[in-house]
C-alpha cells in the first residue's frame, strides 16, 4: 500500500560502496608500491606532509564547512525519503473537450469516496484506498480491516462487485487492476453512531 525508499537506499549504498572500494584499492595500491611508477611521491614510505599541508590552507575550514553542509543536506534528503508515502495518481483530467473547460479530480478524492463506500459494508471497520494509474486505466489498491467475526467471502464479493463497480462507474472506465488486502481488526477502531434505514 505504501512505497518505501528501498530502491533509493540500494542506489545510495551502491554508490557509497563503490567510493569506499575505490579508496580502499587506491590505498592498497599505494601500500604495495604499485603507484610509484605513476608518481614517485606515491610510494609506500612517502612523506604525508604534502597531504597534510592541504589541511593548513587558509580556506580549509570554509571548505570543510561547505562540505559538511552538503553532506547534511544529502543526509536530510535521505532521512525524508525514508518516510513511507502513498503514491497517488496525478489529478485526473476528465473533460470531453478542453476548449469548453477542464474537469479535474484528485485521486485522493475518488479514493476517499471508495473507502467510505467500503466502510458502509457489513463487517468492515476501516478501509484505506489508493488510486493509481490514469483516467483510462485506473487501478485500485484496497486495504480493508474486517471484524474478526465478519464474513470474509462476503466482503471480498462486495468489494469486487459493488465497490469496484461504483468506482468504475464514477471514473467512467473499467478498472485495469484491483488489489485487495484484508486484515482482521480485533478492536473496532470506528464506532457507527447513526444508521440509515431507508
Amino acid at each position, binding site marked *: 500500500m505504501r512505497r518505501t525508499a528501498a530502491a533509493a537506499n540500494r542506489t545510495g549504498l551502491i554508490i557509497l560502496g563503490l567510493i569506499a572500494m575505490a579508496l580502499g584499492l587506491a590505498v592498497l595500491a599505494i601500500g604495495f608500491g604499485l603507484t610509484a611508477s605513476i608518481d614517485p611521491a606515491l610510494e609506500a614510505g612517502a612523506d604525508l606532509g604534502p597531504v597534510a599541508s592541504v589541511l593548513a590552507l587558509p580556506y580549509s575550514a570554509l571548505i570543510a564547512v561547505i562540505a559538511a553542509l552538503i553532506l547534511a543536506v544529502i543526509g536530510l534528503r535521505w532521512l525524508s525519503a525514508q518516510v513511507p508515502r502513498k503514491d497517488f495518481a496525478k489529478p485526473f483530467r476528465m*473533460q470531453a473537450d478542453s476548449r469548453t473547460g477542464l*474537469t*479535474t479530480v484528485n485521486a485522493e478524492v475518488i479514493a476517499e469516496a471508495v473507502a467510505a463506500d467500503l466502510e458502509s459494508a457489513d463487517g468492515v471497520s476501516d478501509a484505506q484506498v489508493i488510486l493509481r494509474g490514469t483516467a483510462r486505466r485506473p487501478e485500485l489498491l484496497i486495504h480493508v480491516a474486517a471484524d474478526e467475526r465478519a464474513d470474509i467471502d462476503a466482503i471480498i464479493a462486495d468489494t469486487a462487485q459493488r465497490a469496484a463497480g461504483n468506482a468504475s462507474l*464514477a471514473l467512467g472506465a473499467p478498472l485495469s487492476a484491483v488489489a485487495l488486502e484484508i486484515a482482521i481488526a480485533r478492536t473496532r477502531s470506528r464506532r457507527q453512531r447513526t444508521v440509515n434505514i431507508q
Partner: protein
Amino acid sequence: MAPTLDDAPARRGGLTIADKVVERTAGQVLKDLPGVGGTSSGLFGIGASSSLDTRPSVDVTLSGRSCTLAVQLGLAYPTPIAEATERLRTTLSAEVERLTGVTVRQVDISVRWLAPDSSGANRGRNRLQ
C-alpha cells in the same frame, strides 16, 4: 407601433453587471442541480463542512462581454464524473448566459469531494444522471 430610434437600448441607459452577480447566479444555478454540492467555509476555515445542500464555490473572470467560470464542487457518489460534469457545464453556461446576458466561454470544474447521497440532503430531488 414600430420602435423608433428613441426606444433603442443604448438610449435608454446602460446596464452594468458586476462579476459578483455572475458568481452568485452561477452558484445558485449549481445549487439547484441535483447531486451537486459545495463546501461551507466556516470561521477561518474551522468548522468547514461539505454537503449536497451547500452552494458550490464559483470564481468568475470577466473578459469583455464573456466570462470564464472556475467551479469547485462536490458530487454524489457514485456518479459518472465525466458525464455529470459535462452536462453540468452545458447547463451552467446556458443558464448563466440566459440570466445575465454574459457569454460563458469556459467552465473549469474541480471536483473536491464525492459523497454518497444517502444522508437525505438531496432526498426528493432527482439524482444527476
